[in-house]
């Protein structure tokens, strides 16, 4: 029997998701034994035309990482959609928009101006910014369009499954690959990770006091957190309450609070809104009756960049999707 064909592709991402595949270590040999990798730009020398030459649905599954920011990325994922039986959105950027999705606080013009003109380390006396078409003596050069808004993969093509995380951890990748090979997949649209929240599985969760109240907000660099205590107890904002479990508590174990890369649990529509709601609920609860409105606002103002914090990984997938430009 012919081995199932598998493709990997990347869009607006950092390369960490490619690394995550390599991090399967010797397990990758099992994968390679069971499947035929037919396209993987970071590692193998197949070209777009090779994909184009394949029949529709010929690739069993494409694992696509990265958010969609350019016309080229859109074109490639549409091609892969056509040629693949299953599409798995691989990693936070593809699933939620991820860190590249923070660009939705700006648009093309403001990004180009910053990057090509006003950044102190940029020397660009003629103020040249990328153009989609440039005429040179040899003819016309073209570049793909750079969109104003970063999108998630499922805002661009139909997605069958999601592997969350920045980057997805090896055990979840292997579980997904095994489920696909054995045909034991859950219903379409599922996130291939546990349904619990991170607090439910966090080792610090048990020690969390029943009633949390934050008196003063601390940023991670300001204190060395007690590795035994829940971050919230120490005044450090942790998004564990509104984040899906499954990462292996990676940040927590490195004594850093969760920033939500696994995305929300099932019932949450907007991770950022839920996060800010959860945190606002416990700010100063202990003294809430004694605090004046001014005291309350002062405490909340200690969160310097709420939109960037609560939507760190999920802005493009949120209800508002991006900043509304004036």
């Amino acid at each position, binding site marked *: 029997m012919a081995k199932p064909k598998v493709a990997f592709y990347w869009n607006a991402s950092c390369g960490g998701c490619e690394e995550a595949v390599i991090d399967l270590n010797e397990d990758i040999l099992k994968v390679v034994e069971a499947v035929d990798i037919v396209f993987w730009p970071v590692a193998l020398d197949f070209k777009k035309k090779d994909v184009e030459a394949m029949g529709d649905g010929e690739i069993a599954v494409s694992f696509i990482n990265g958010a969609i920011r350019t016309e080229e990325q859109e074109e490639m994922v549409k091609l892969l959609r056509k040629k693949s039986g299953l599409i798995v959105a691989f990693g936070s950027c593809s699933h939620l928009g991820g860190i590249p999705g923070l660009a939705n*606080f700006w648009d093309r013009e403001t990004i180009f101006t910053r990057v090509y003109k006003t950044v102190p380390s940029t020397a660009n006396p003629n103020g040249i910014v990328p153009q989609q078409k440039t005429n040179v003596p040899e003819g016309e050069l073209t570049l793909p369009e750079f969109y104003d*808004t970063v999108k998630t993969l499922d805002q661009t093509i139909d997605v069958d499954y999601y592997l969350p995380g920045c980057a997805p951890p090896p055990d979840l990748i292997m579980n997904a690959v095994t489920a696909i090979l054995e045909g034991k997949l859950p219903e379409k649209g599922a996130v291939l990770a546990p349904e619990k929240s991170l607090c439910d599985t966090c080792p610090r969760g048990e020690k969390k006091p029943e009633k949390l109240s934050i008196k003063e907000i601390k940023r991670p660099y300001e204190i060395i957190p007690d590795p035994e205590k829940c971050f919230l107890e120490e005044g450090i904002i942790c998004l564990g309450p509104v984040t899906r479990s499954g990462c292996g508590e990676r940040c927590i174990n490195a004594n850093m609070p969760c920033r939500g890369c696994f995305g929300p649990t099932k019932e*949450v*529509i*907007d991770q*950022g*809104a*839920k996060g*800010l*709601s959860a*945190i*606002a*609920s416990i*700010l*100063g*609860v202990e003294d*809430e*009756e004694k605090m004046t*409105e001014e005291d*309350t*606002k002062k405490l*909340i*103002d200690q*969160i310097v*960049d*709420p*939109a*960037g914090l*609560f939507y760190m990984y999920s802005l493009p997938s949120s*209800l*508002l*999707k*991006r*900043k*509304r*430009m*004036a």
Partner: protein
Amino acid sequence: MNEPTIVSFLCNWCSYEGADKAGGARLNYPANIRIVRVMCSGRVDPELVIQALKEGASGVLILGCHPGDCHYKKGNYKALRRAYLLKKTLKQLGIEEERVRLDWVAAGEGERFAEIANEMAETMKNLGPLELS
């Protein structure tokens, strides 16, 4: 011209009664205030507010009992913190803070309700509809 819609979450115990008083006393308040009765202002999750804006509301009004008077004791303190943090967040996302307003209206304050509703309608008229991409 279409008047901008204002979705208003009113707590059952004080503010909804207040709005009722306003209605009973035939006080004028704008028709584009769409009232949603909730048990407590502390029930109004920021997710609901953003959903209302997303689905076409120009503004969202949240009204609860005065501090100290919440039927559930502390729901309105929570509402205050959430609304303030939400407004800060929305501002960063290019949505004017005035589009979300939290205020207190007691059961007997029909006039106060009408006043706040009219002010909100006026503010929304000045800001115009909320166009989202």
